[in-house]
């Protein structure tokens, strides 16, 4: 018995010491403000996907900071600098592979998060603004994937850039930034590098902050199969709550597991580095996240990418302003569900069709 009491006393002492440290930090930084209550259902995996996306983003920043130490963003040496860092710098092959897989994970978890929000009607009043912030972030994630693909400066990356430049031309004045004439003394690779390492992650950070603040402002949306409060857009007071720090703690655990999973993929399936690009060739297929657009391009030409991507984002943007009923349960939203399913199926079918599509020339570049 005395031993048990001693252990309890040591544990209590340790807890009080931890508590004291937290108090000291809280006095100066106010971290206890994060302990506000959130409904218990928010700690499920499906409701933590936004946090998992943020964890992938964190991993991308850490690995990205390491990559920029060795990457040369000028056309003459970009491709070779990647080969050098992968083959000659200790551990950088793993870091690059981890960056690649974290990018795939961020895209997948962002899409899954969007699907969860759609399925549970969490975009409905008063959360329409936050839905738009999320859609904008998805657009930025896709831009980050695109610019990252170009930075490899191999044939695949160069062809992606050429597509982008010609789509910029289709956009006319709105696509001026994507034209080489915008700053004709610089290689466009340097500008895309700036976009990839500063502009896009910077904008994502700003929007993530806004996203988080709006989640706090409107509170976690109610679970559609649970009762709501009298307003209909909040979880009821009777639902058990946990401090937000517990939500962060669980996201941290998911993030750790995600890092491990991506690490395994990075070792077993690291990305290759293609040959340095040659102008006038169109012989590669884009990364898998762009396959559905690739099929559209084969059917309708370059404008297929523009109109396909534009239509998808237009649909996403207008969704909360069209679907205005208070119903959140999917069985009570047949039109929205049918449209969502149709869109998803279309993207899946177009993606699968890419496997049966030959690469053909669409670009006007020298060939």
């Amino acid at each position, binding site marked *: 018995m005395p031993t048990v009491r001693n252990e309890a006393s040591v544990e209590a002492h340790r807890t009080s010491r931890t508590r004291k440290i937290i108090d000291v930090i809280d006095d100066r930084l106010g971290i206890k403000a994060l302990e506000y209550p959130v409904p218990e259902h928010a*700690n499920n995996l499906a409701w933590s996907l936004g946090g998992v996306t943020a964890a992938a983003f964190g991993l991308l920043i850490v690995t990205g900071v390491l990559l920029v130490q060795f990457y040369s963003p000028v056309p003459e040496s970009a491709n070779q600098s990647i080969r050098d860092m992968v083959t000659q710098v200790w551990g950088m092959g793993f870091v690059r592979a981890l960056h690649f897989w974290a990018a795939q994970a961020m895209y997948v978890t962002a899409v899954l998060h969007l699907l969860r929000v759609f399925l549970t009607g969490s975009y409905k009043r008063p959360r329409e603004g936050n839905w738009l912030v999320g859609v904008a972030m998805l657009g930025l994630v896709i831009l980050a994937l695109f610019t990252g693909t170009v930075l490899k400066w191999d044939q695949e990356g160069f062809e992606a850039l050429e597509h982008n430049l010609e789509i910029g031309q289709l956009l006319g*004045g709105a696509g001026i930034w994507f034209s080489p004439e915008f700053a004709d003394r610089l290689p466009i690779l340097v500008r895309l590098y700036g976009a990839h390492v500063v502009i896009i992650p910077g904008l994502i950070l700003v929007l993530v902050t806004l996203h988080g603040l709006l989640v706090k402002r409107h509170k976690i949306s109610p*679970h559609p199969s649970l009762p709501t409060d009298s307003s209909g857009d909040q979880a009821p007071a009777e639902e058990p709550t946990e401090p937000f720090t517990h939500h962060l703690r669980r996201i941290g*655990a998911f993030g750790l*597991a995600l890092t*491990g999973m991506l690490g395994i993929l990075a070792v077993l399936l690291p990305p290759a580095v293609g*040959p340095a690009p040659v102008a006038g060739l169109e012989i*590669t297929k884009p990364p898998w996240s762009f396959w559905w657009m690739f099929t559209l391009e084969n059917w309708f030409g370059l404008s297929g990418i523009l109109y396909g991507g534009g239509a998808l984002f237009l649909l996403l943007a207008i969704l909360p302003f069209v679907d205005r009923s208070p119903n959140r349960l999917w069985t009570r939203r047949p039109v929205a569900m049918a449209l969502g399913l149709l869109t998803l199926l279309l993207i899946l079918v177009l993606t699968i069709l890419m496997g049966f599509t030959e690469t053909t020339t669409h670009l006007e570049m*020298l060939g």
Partner: protein
Amino acid sequence: MSVPLALLVRLPVGDRRSFLARQLRVVVAVASIGLFGLFAVAPPASADGGGETNEGYLLVQQALGHLAHDTSSGGIDLAMEKVEDALATEDQDGVAVADVEQAERALEAGRAGHARALLQGSIRQALSELGLATGEQTGTTVVAPPLPGREALTGRDWGFLAASMVFLLAGMGLALRFRPRDTIGELRQRLGASRTAVDDRAGSPTEVEREI
């Protein structure tokens, strides 16, 4: 249209919401018209951006590109077409034509590696005359074969693999430990059958909904 902020604050909540909704619609409409206008007045897409090149060194580089990407007979055929174009074009500045002819013979004999070395050497002078790349220029001098993603696992790889597995297991263990006390089904029971979700008056949720 414009209502002073002080007046807006004094409006009843319902009126304020409808006013803000109207404002939002106006903003969306103006933004849409603005975007449409921007595209409408913009110059049309260039229709004469390229076509077949007649630059000999670039045709040789394109042959090298085909050989680097596809070492099958299909790739060799495509490379051969580019080599023939390079030999036929008038602009052969900086290209060692004799080397290209030799490369053509090597390709015919199926010796792609030898042909690649000859082609790379044949444009050395042309490449040395190029300035630093600007705009969308590639800046490519050597078209090396792809660097494969993975080779045999080294001790370092096994180390990263082991660390990653520890991360994965630790993360899964912690996620399990920090899981919420109640499942959605239990929460539903706790919150009582008397209260129903706002939009769930027609019946109880399905299994799929319970999993979310």
